[in-house]
């Protein structure tokens, strides 16, 4: 675990440093810009889906979906990050308690 943690930290730092140091012409290409903008969108959307619906190698609907539904409403109402995150946890926890 430690090796992966440190390698990921090093990679993230070098990516930041590269942007600050590399001449812009090397990376400033419209396709590169588009892909780099879309990567966080694609990965975060996939992470949401997998976190909420995956259970091992199966897909399930459980209390996590209610947590996500709360998050959608809270975000639409411009609630702060911590309200979104811990509110989703609370909704899921209460639902499990009731079940």
């Amino acid at each position, binding site marked *: *675990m*430690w*090796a*992966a*943690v*440190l390698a*990921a*930290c090093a990679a*993230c*730092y070098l*990516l*930041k*440093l*590269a*942007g*600050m*140091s590399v001449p*812009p012409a090397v*990376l400033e290409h*419209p*396709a590169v*810009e*588009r*892909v*780099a*903008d*879309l*990567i*966080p*969108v*694609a*990965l*975060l*959307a*996939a*992470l*949401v889906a*997998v*976190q*909420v*619906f*995956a259970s*091992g*190698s199966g897909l399930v609907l459980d*209390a*996590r979906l209610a*947590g*996500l539904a*709360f*998050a959608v409403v809270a*975000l639409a109402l411009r609630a*702060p*990050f*911590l309200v*979104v*995150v*811990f509110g*989703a946890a609370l909704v*899921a*926890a209460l639902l499990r308690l009731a079940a």
Partner: protein
Amino acid sequence: MSDPEPELTARERRAILRDSIAVGVATGVYGVSFGAIAVTSGLTVAQTCALSLLMFTGASQFAFIGVVAAGASPWSGALTAALLGTRNTLYGLRLAPLLRLSAPVRLGAAHVVIDESTAMSVTRDSTAAARVGFWATGLSVFVCWNLATLAGALAGEGLGDPRTYGLDAAVGAAFLALLWPRLRDRRNQVVAVLAASVALGLVPITAAGVPVLAAGAVALLVGALTRGADPTEIPEPPHADPHHDPHHSDTDDSDPHQSDSQGPAGGGA
């Protein structure tokens, strides 16, 4: 150190400092959720704090623990985190000509290139103002984020099964909150739905960790197949007070092409 730019007035400096520190504190407290979720995902307190100290980019940190919690190898967590870290490279490209830092200073500055420090400096119209916004935001997020991570990790340590407290649902909510500001754009919405579908389709037939990485291919494909100018997207920082920052809402359209980024925007001495 020759700096041809005009000095900031004390008043301008104070206003930028105040806004930046407000954003820094508001963002930093998210660290509580990261710390708590990380230890209940199976990381030690030390590993959790190492991520906040050394990786210091929230989405990548959440991705790392999310992938690990799903039962995948830590290395697919690392790869996902690095992929998400690529957006900081783009931020650096925008910041470098504006901040104009010497090479040794860049080594330190690079570490605090994140969504919030970028958002609070790229809208400034002089190097001096951009530097104040960058450092004040970056450093205040860094301090608060790390303290909050430690507090969350220590609090999470005694919790036991994260499912009892719904913390598994909290991770999905955290990713959605990070994604949310990017969903105003129609193309991003399409990519998000495609990526989520690809990931879910792969869950039953691939090892944990693979579905998320494979969804990154959707970004590659759509990015390669579409065309048109695309300014770097920098999510709005939380609680940024628009009336202190008249350029705030311009981040989406003030710079539709990158060709002028060789020189700082204005300065106007």
